[in-house]
């Protein structure tokens, strides 16, 4: 070993090191990181705990952003699949006394509007639905009965979970299709065996079971029978209670404006037109406002994490007075000391930030997957998460670093 070692003077003479007496002290860039990391490594537990505060703050920010985007995209997918071009027309409350009703001809007149792509209607049937004829009449289970034409399913983008919907063939037979909630209340799980319902004093065969309608939740709690069967068996006049209209995407608002007058030229104010997809969009907006709240909470967590880092750094300055003194004695400038402490804080914070981003992504992934949503993590959450952590680290480290640089080396190094 002795042969290989040279004194510093011999190293100097190779000419690669500054020898001007007054050339400024210089800490190599690679050493800046090593010095900062070294002192963190020597206080592992405390470093990890203080970085954890930042990590939790960042994780909550990232997961809030990720989850809100994932759920919003799920909602938008749903809206997109259902279409935003569905309008519903119902009888409004009107100005006059008594219930107003849509005219019998509503479906036909709406169908003549050029921008209307499809129409379908439901007609109220005043009857109770029972599993059999022994159930007391008042136990209706809150299930209503509507008559419908075969086009309703397509107009609503609905799906059948079992059996079939009302067809041209079955629209005049005493047969019914059961909404999802109604099926549950009636205790119908499947149609493996033929099921009959006792509707308005008549036995009716169940043709099919419906999946939930996203845009017409009323129908989930209803049993539908064919419109002709309603006329023939229940003697119902076919006055539409709701007309569902699919409209050309590009003329939704224009069509909406003319529909009321089209339906009831005499009393246009009595037709109430709504757009069910607005509800979903409102839900999405409501979720966004919650996102704001959670983001605020995440920011508070991040702030607390930053204070934790600042606290650890301030304690570190007090504890490491002698180290600071020694560094000053071996040639560190105040700027070197300041930089060292700042880099420690930045390292802690970016460590916490990285862990937080990973944690946030993991939370988003697990929760979104469990909800059956597409996992979407906005890039702003990733970049912003790290950037916020670094910013917090810089702010948290600034004061301790300035304090460290102000430590008087003579005080720190005094022997008594």
């Amino acid at each position, binding site marked *: 070993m002795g042969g290989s070692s*040279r004194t510093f003077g011999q190293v*100097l003479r190779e000419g690669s090191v500054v020898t*001007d007496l007054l050339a400024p*002290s210089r800490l190599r860039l690679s050493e800046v990181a090593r010095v900062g990391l070294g002192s963190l490594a020597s206080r592992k537990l405390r470093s990890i705990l203080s970085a954890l505060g930042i990590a939790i703050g960042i994780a909550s920010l990232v997961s809030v952003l990720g989850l809100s985007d994932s759920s919003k995209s799920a909602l938008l997918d749903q809206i997109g699949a259902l279409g935003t071009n569905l309008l519903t027309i119902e009888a409004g409350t009107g100005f006059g006394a008594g219930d107003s009703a849509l005219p019998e001809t509503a479906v036909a007149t709406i169908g003549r509007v050029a921008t209307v792509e499809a129409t379908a209607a439901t007609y109220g049937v005043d009857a109770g639905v029972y599993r059999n004829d022994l159930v007391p009449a008042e136990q209706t289970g809150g299930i209503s009965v509507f008559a419908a034409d075969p086009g309703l399913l397509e107009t609503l983008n609905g799906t059948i979970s079992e059996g079939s919907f009302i067809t041209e063939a079955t629209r005049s037979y005493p047969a019914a299709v059961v909404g999802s909630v109604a099926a549950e209340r009636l205790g119908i799980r499947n149609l493996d065996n033929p099921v009959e319902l006792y509707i308005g004093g008549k036995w009716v065969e169940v043709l099919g079971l419906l999946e939930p309608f996203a845009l017409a939740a009323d129908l989930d709690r209803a049993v539908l029978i064919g419109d002709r069967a309603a006329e023939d068996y229940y003697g119902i006049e076919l006055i539409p209670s709701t007309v569902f209209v699919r409209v050309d995407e590009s003329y939704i608002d224009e069509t909406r404006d003319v529909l009321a007058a089209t339906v009831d030229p005499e009393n246009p104010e009595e037709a109430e037109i709504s757009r069910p997809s607005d509800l979903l969009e409102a839900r999405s907006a409501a979720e966004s406002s919650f996102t704001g709240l959670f983001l605020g909470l995440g920011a508070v967590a991040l702030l607390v994490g930053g204070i934790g880092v600042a606290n650890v750094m301030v304690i570190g300055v007090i504890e490491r007075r002698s180290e600071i003194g020694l560094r000053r004695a071996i040639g560190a400038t105040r700027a070197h000391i300041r930089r060292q402490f700042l880099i420690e804080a930045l390292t802690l914070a970016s460590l916490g930030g990285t862990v937080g981003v990973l944690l946030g992504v993991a939370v988003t992934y697990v929760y979104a997957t469990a909800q059956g949503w597409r996992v979407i993590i906005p890039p702003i959450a990733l970049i912003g998460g790290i950037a916020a952590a670094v910013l917090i680290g810089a702010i948290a480290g600034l004061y301790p670093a300035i304090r460290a640089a102000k430590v008087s*080396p*003579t005080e720190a190094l005094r022997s008594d």
Partner: protein
Amino acid sequence: MIQRDSSRTGTGSSRLAPRVGRSSLRRRWQLPVASPDPAAPAIELRNVSKRYPGLPPVTALDRVSVRIDRGEMVAVVGQSGSGKSTMLHVMGTLDQPTSGSVLIEGIDTSALGDDHLAAIRGRRVGFVFQRFFLLAGVPILDNVANGLLYTGASRPQRREAARSVLERVGLGARMQHRPNALSGGETQRVAIARALVHEPAFILADEPTGNLDSASSAGIMDLFGSLHAEGRTIVVVTHNEQIAAALPRQLQILDGRLEQDIRTGAA
């Protein structure tokens, strides 16, 4: 990263006075270039006073003038609180005098800022402390190599120089040990190696034997003796009169004043 040519310091005829000039290579600030004046004393205090404000204000050093030549070995003695530690810190530019000037190798430090003073400490001053101040958990080789941390030397260069001084102080076989595996005397040898690693103009030792038993103390003073014999300049602050008496020159400090400057020519 600007590597400057080291030959600049060794050239020129104007080496009698500190050479102060400018180079276009200077970064950010226009820093003067200075090289030590080989004819000047290692350290010179000219009428140096150090007062700390407060009620009442404390005068730690009171108009001290002293000159320590190259190759001298000097003891600074005095009661606790007499100002001897302050004098040592002022000599090493860790502390600046309230009035008067400190010259290191002929360079007046009174007008210099933090950057330059730090550079002088990092290149020309070697400190040894009573409490050693080694980083626990770091092998002694790197503890010594850290003495060069702020010189801009690379890690291999620093380690090479550290190996060489550790061999010099008799710890060549223990370079990978951590400080807590060493005895008090060995720990102080490591600290001395760190003070030597950058080949300073002088060593300032503040109560270097204060935490050691008498056998270890004797070992440390022997080491200082042999470093002195090699021509190094050493200033030892001590309240131990026996140790002081064994050194060729003693500065006695009382209430911040230089009471006596005794040259015994011992050792």
